[in-house]
């Protein structure tokens, strides 16, 4: 936790409170009870850390990683599990963005969750794999200080993609000085992490480099990546703070893809194998991904006014090769030369430039003898995206068909007003309204792909992007192969929360809000009036927070929620991504507990949700209805031998993360297997050295991380397999990782 530091100006109550932890009360950060749970304690400290937005109720999780940092986290997405109801899967391998399931949403790789890192957007507008695709692998897990997860669209600051909710990572580095962590483990995994943070400097000033490579736990899962994050946080004067952040990330991974269960049962493909290893396909799947960004933020205060402005620029190339169906979708068209199925491998590439700014101005004051706040803010973002998707011939590796070629310029400019009104010391009304303008300028470079009456004199043959168009029933005319479409629309998003309490540690809240997700540029047609999907969410919750025996902090939360979406996203194996579906509803409950003591930190959450389509009332496939997760850490300085160890005690910690996911509904009335995994980590440290040993999937559970029912044909039978069967991606087996950490310069 960052050390308090004088700023020279008075902090608001929200800034003086210690950080709330997972499951903190709805008003955490604004009011805290005294040690005896009675009257609110008056705290007289000022901190420099970024001001946390006022809580939006029981579904606003301000997750301090704290002692749970020692629970094994493979990547930044893994940290999301500290918030209730989140399941992560990954059909695309280690370098691929995790698929996130949250409160009944199959948010795929972020399409229904707004991801940010210290306010800088991660969602990729216009990404052909999924509009809003969010790859968080560029974030080094050790730098994650806290995470704000708002489950639902209840905060006017939440922008595009905040349909299921939002997640904002906050980075800082508590361990000062120069630190090196070297890790080696199963399957040829090797990781080197170097961090530097000036001793005595601000927690937000640091630099870190991570190198990673692995052979992977099965066939064709090798990969390597490198990440750099550098950040400088400074203070220009007593009222102005600033921060500059630069990131660079590049990765290249192979992936095994899906396996048909009947092929696994018949011994044609092993559980951790793939079709490439077994010789049924010739081309590898994988991903080459990079992300470079720079961002700067200024925060100023002047009396009752404060303002923040953040500007960012992101360059993001991505190449993705994946195959969900084998040899299925290459249908013989009359225009084409006769051919067999040539292979369904998708070769997708996009290059995106994202730039923008966001900021706010806030006025604080006192009315009714209560502190009041009103904030206006803006968000402006532009994306210039060039994207292609081609199909690769399995025998030759050459592209044989262009599915899509889009040049898109996308804009999102939003304004919001947010009020934090305290009517009494125990009743607050928070909320406001947000309005976003979405603009789309999409040049489809491959607008014509079929002809009903092709010209015999000028047959188009196997070309994907045609320069002919049927002008009448019997003739064709020349045309350029592209078509530009533009559209724009505004959306008004009211959001509000009512918070009561705390009364002896007990608080209650009710929230309602609308969220929005802009749609994929693929779906844009000229003048389309509503190029977005919207959701309305209702939420009610209770929370309890109390400190017992001076050192035991207990936080309990229980939330009931109901969310309706007008255009859901449904996984399509032939498109290799989610496509637009019909309206749907989710009704469920999220419950969490966190116990924090002087030598332990325990968090657990359980979420149940029922997600159904509105027209058929059938369950939405793939969405888990029951998710349980617990993270626990015990950490202690050992009293023994201190004198013999140069005055530095031995310290030890043991941490575990346990995940249980109930059988998920799959298409065609079936359910997946359940998932139950245990991860552990043990660290023994002395002075400047720490030795760590972690085991992921301790029980070596042979589990299917992703399960699907759909049609595929990997040529494992003499004739095409054309009916839906079970497919899966294998979860990682038991994995060991040894690490040694050396530090110089940390005086703690």
């Amino acid at each position: 936790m960052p050390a308090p530091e004088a700023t020279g100006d008075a902090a608001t109550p929200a800034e003086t409170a210690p950080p709330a932890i997972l499951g903190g009360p709805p008003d955490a950060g604004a009011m805290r009870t005294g040690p005896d749970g009675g009257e609110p304690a008056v705290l007289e400290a000022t901190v420099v850390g970024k001001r946390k937005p006022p809580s939006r109720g029981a579904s606003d999780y301000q997750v301090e990683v704290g002692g749970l940092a020692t629970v094994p986290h493979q990547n930044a997405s893994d940290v999301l599990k500290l918030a209730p109801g989140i399941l992560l899967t990954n059909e695309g391998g280690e370098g691929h963005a995790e698929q996130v399931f949250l409160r009944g949403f199959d948010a795929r790789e972020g399409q229904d969750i707004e991801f940010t890192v210290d306010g800088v957007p991660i969602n990729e507008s216009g990404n052909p794999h999924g509009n809003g695709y969010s790859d968080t692998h560029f974030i080094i897990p050790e730098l994650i200080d806290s995470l704000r997860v708002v489950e639902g669209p209840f905060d006017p600051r939440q922008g595009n993609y905040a349909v299921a909710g939002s997640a904002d990572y906050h980075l800082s580095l508590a361990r000062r000085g120069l630190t090196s962590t070297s890790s080696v483990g199963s399957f040829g995994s090797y990781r080197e992490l170097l961090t530097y943070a000036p001793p005595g400097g601000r927690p937000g000033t640091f630099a870190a480099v991570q190198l990673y490579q692995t052979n992977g736990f099965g066939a064709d899962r090798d990969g390597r990546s490198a990440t750099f994050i550098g950040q400088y946080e400074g203070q220009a004067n007593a009222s102005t703070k600033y921060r500059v952040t630069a990131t660079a990330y590049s990765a290249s991974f192979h992936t095994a893809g899906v396996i048909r269960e009947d092929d696994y049962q018949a011994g044609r493909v092993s559980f951790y194998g793939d079709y490439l290893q077994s010789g049924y396909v010739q081309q590898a799947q994988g991903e080459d991904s990079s992300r470079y960004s720079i961002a700067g933020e200024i925060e100023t205060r002047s009396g009752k006014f404060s303002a923040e402005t953040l500007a960012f620029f992101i360059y993001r190339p991505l190449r993705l090769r994946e195959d969900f169906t084998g040899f299925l979708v290459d249908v013989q068209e009359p225009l084409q030369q006769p051919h067999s199925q040539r292979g369904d491998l998708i070769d997708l590439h996009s290059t995106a430039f994202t730039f923008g700014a966001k900021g706010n101005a806030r006025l604080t004051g006192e009315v009714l003898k209560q502190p009041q706040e009103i904030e206006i803010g803006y968000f402006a973002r532009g994306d210039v995206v060039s994207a292609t998707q081609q199909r690769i011939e399995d025998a030759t590796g050459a592209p044989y068909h262009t599915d899509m070629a889009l040049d898109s310029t996308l804009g999102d400019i939003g304004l919001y007003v947010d009020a934090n009104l305290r009517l009494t010391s125990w009743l607050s009304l928070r909320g406001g309204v947000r309005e976003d303008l979405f603009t789309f300028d999409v040049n489809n470079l491959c607008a014509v792909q079929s002809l009903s009456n092709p010209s015999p004199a000028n047959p188009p043959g196997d070309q994907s992007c045609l320069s002919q168009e049927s002008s009448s029933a019997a003739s064709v005319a020349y045309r350029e192969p592209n078509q530009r479409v533009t559209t724009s629309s505004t959306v008004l998003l009211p959001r509000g929360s009512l918070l009561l309490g705390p009364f002896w540690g007990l608080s209650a809240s009710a929230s309602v809000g609308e969220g929005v997700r802009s749609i994929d540029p693929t779906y844009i047609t000229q003048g389309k009036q509503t190029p977005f999907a919207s959701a309305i969410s209702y939420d009610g919750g209770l929370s309890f927070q109390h400190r017992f025996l001076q050192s035991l902090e207990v936080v309990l939360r229980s939330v009931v929620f109901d969310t309706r979406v007008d255009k859901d996203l449904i996984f399509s194996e032939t498109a290799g991504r989610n496509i637009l579906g019909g309206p749907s509803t989710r009704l469920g409950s999220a419950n969490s507990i966190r116990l924090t003591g002087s030598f332990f930190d325990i968090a657990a959450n359980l979420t149940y949700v029922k997600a159904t389509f509105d027209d058929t009332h059938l369950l939405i496939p793939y969405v888990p209805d029951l998710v349980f997760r617990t993270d626990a850490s015990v950490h202690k300085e050992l009293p023994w031998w201190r004198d013999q160890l140069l005055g530095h005690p031995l310290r030890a910690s043991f941490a575990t993360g346990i995940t249980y996911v109930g059988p998920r509904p799959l298409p065609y009335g079936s359910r997946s297997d359940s998932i139950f995994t245990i991860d552990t980590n043990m660290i023994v440290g002395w002075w400047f050295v720490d030795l760590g040993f972690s085991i992921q999937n301790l029980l070596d559970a042979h589990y299917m991380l992703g399960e699907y029912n759909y049609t595929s044909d990997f040529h494992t039978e003499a004739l095409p397999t054309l009916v839906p069967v079970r497919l899966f991606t294998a979860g990682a087996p038991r994995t060991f990782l040894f690490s040694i950490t050396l530090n110089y310069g940390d005086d703690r």
Partner: protein
Amino acid sequence: MRQFALLALLVAGCGDTTGSALVAFSATAAGPSDATGGPISFSYVAVPATGTSPAVTAQVTLTRATLHIGALYLNQSVPLSGAGAAPCILPGIYVAQIFGPIDVDLLSGSPQAFPVQGEGTQTEAKTAEVWLTGGDVNAQQDPTVILDVEGTAVEGGETYPFTGIVTIGTNRAKQVTNPATPGANPMCRQRIVTPILVDITPSSGGTLALQIDPRPMFNNVDFAAKGALTQVSTSPLQYQIPDANTGAGKALYGGMFVNSGVYSFTWK
């Protein structure tokens, strides 16, 4: 763990579903129900290929008739009159599949089981496909004998002892007539009999029964027409139906693709 999963299902509301179901079933094929395993005799009015000679009645006795089936598929699509020919394979429409290969004795009315179980979904099927192939349905060449017949025909007072085989390869390929649509008649279309109208919803544990009647296959075979048969010996007199798109060979191949009367599906 299992108990935990069951409890979880209970809590999650195990009565809820995404609809439909994956199913596994068995399948059989047989000749017509009146076939006993011995020769089948039948007569029909042979329509002359050229139209220059008058129609005559042909009396045929089959002593051997086997049909090689590569696979069966049921699908949801309903043929639309006036619509162009659909692609051989249209992903997403299939309800059930049963793989062979199986050589069906068409002279026996006893069900002959497919070697493996069929699989599919509990979805209503509207049409069926019979895949007459020995391997890749798109291969240009396939030496597999799809139909093997032997018998005697009497037509116009003449007797024609005959044998015949049907293979489906380049001998059945259709020429490209429009250079703008070279893929309009792929080889797969020469090997798939469809649409065969059905009304079947597969369910686990059931049996898909296919009945194949060889008699309608001969409806257009004019044994007496000039060049219809190839005489392979005079003593004993023996004719062969050519394995080509000419004469009786073309008519017999066409008869295999009659989508009503030859193939009928039932669910048991």
